[in-house]
């Protein structure tokens, strides 16, 4: 199934949503509004013609304070139909809140913890929102564009 057909299917299922197709991406991506993201992802997993059963990768991007948005990118793969799909969503940078998909794909649990750790996006409904890679008492989220470097960590100078 082509991404255009998937888009048509999504529009049919949730007509109120504003979707956007991005042809220059590889795999071709669909931008989904954050409000219906959870429903769309459940549909993508459970629909008998799509069956996106594998969440390969979950990436967070900070677009910086000027644009004031952050992005989440879900790279899905359907093992039975051998097709990839990229789903993107934009969230407000100051709010930094997104729905957790760890109920749909449990692999998202650690991916979301990593995004929280490095970008500071909190996930609504996540079972265990702790830092994962950095120490628990680290200040700030280093992949944010405006993240200040903390001066000292446990008395050790951070900047070299």
């Amino acid at each position, binding site marked *: 199934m082509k991404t255009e057909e998937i888009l048509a299917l999504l529009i049919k299922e949730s007509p109120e949503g504003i979707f956007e197709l991005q042809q220059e991406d590889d795999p071709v991506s669909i931008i989904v509004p954050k409000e219906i993201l959870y429903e769309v992802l459940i549909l993508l997993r459970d629909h008998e013609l799509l069956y996106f059963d594998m969440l390969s990768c979950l990436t967070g991007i900070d677009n910086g304070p000027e644009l004031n948005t952050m992005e989440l990118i879900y790279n899905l793969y359907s093992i039975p139909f051998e097709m990839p799909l990229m789903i993107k969503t934009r969230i407000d940078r100051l709010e930094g809140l997104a729905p957790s998909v760890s109920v749909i794909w*449990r692999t998202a649990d*650690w991916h979301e913890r990593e995004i929280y750790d490095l970008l500071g996006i909190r996930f609504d409904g996540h079972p265990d929102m702790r830092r994962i890679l950095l*120490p628990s008492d680290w200040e700030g989220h*280093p992949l944010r564009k405006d993240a200040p470097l903390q001066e000292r960590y446990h008395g*050790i100078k951070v900047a070299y």
Partner: protein
Amino acid sequence: MDIQYTYHPDHLRNSEPTKTAVESLKRGEMIFNIGPQHPSTHGVLRLEVITDGEIVKEVIPHIGYLHRCFEKHAESMPFNQIIPYVDRMDYLAAMNSEHAYAMGIERILGITDKIPKRVEYIRVLVAELNRIASHFVAIGTYGLDLGAFTPFLWVMRDREHILRLLEWTCGARMLYNYIWIGGLYYDLPLNFEDRCIEFSAYLKPKLNHLESLLLTNKIFIERTAKVGTLPLDLAINYGVTGPMLRASGLKYDLRKVDAYSVYPALDFNIPVGSGMMGETGDCWDRAYVRMQECRESLKLIDQCLERLTTDEKRSRDFDPRALVPKKIRPKAGDFYVRAENPKGELGFFFRTDGRSDVPVRCKARGCSFVNLSVLPEISKGVMLSDLIAIVGSLDLVLGEVDR
């Protein structure tokens, strides 16, 4: 001096606190820490284990001890300079990671079809050699975890030959920077093909010896069969890939599914677990799949060598750097590229702005990271000694878990 550290007991407590509070433990339960410095955790992995006597109630992995800020570094480096960092993620299979990364960038640049066939065959040759080396460490150290010392010495002896062959190609034993975007660092050294053919003939009987010594050993079977069974639906839901997914019974190998590089022209099988000694997807199946994959890799090596000495023979005017771009400037967009590493699907997500040769964002989807996340699920209610068997069967490389 700037590096001055004054000890304070709160530092440790605050930086990596246990998730479970001591007060919340039930009668007879105990928090038990394994690692971060422990040989059976295969690196700096810390496991917080809640035990009731010998029974494991819960496992909580604490990771990040080897975090080297790959993604932050990659934001300020040109694409070609990221390759050495990619090497250091899965340091046991650096060639495979490089191959995945270089292929990904080539796909974004749209030069995949222009890469000379000889370059492709050399890449597959060295990547499969490295795959055997990586699986050897997995099998050998797994035996070591379970108390079998001899197989470890055997595989280290044979792995040494592979490391020497790969050192000959580029000068480094483990972290190669050999596969470049658009080509290779150098052509193969003179006589490399002959030595490689010799090695392949040497290794074939050794694999049989190893299998009969370790995999069909009664103690090994009893320690691993029906232990840590990972059902297929759970494996897919947790995003588990590579030999772990195949051991659970799914014929899913990106070399076949995505058919990248010259793999479609080569003949090889995908071994899957079938519960031969116990249940499908148990620890024994995982070790078995890795063992069989070594044989398949050897088959691939033989075919590559055959092509490299006939159709794609060494010639004086062949330049492996001919297509290496002077300035890498991909078109703007988001890209997800992936390839089959010895441990699973290694994926890279790139965002490029179309103006510079530095990625806006480069995220690595580490297969070990995802494979480790299933550990709490499959080690509930097992014996403490089985937990060691399960951790070993995941084949973790902490460099890739933490990145």
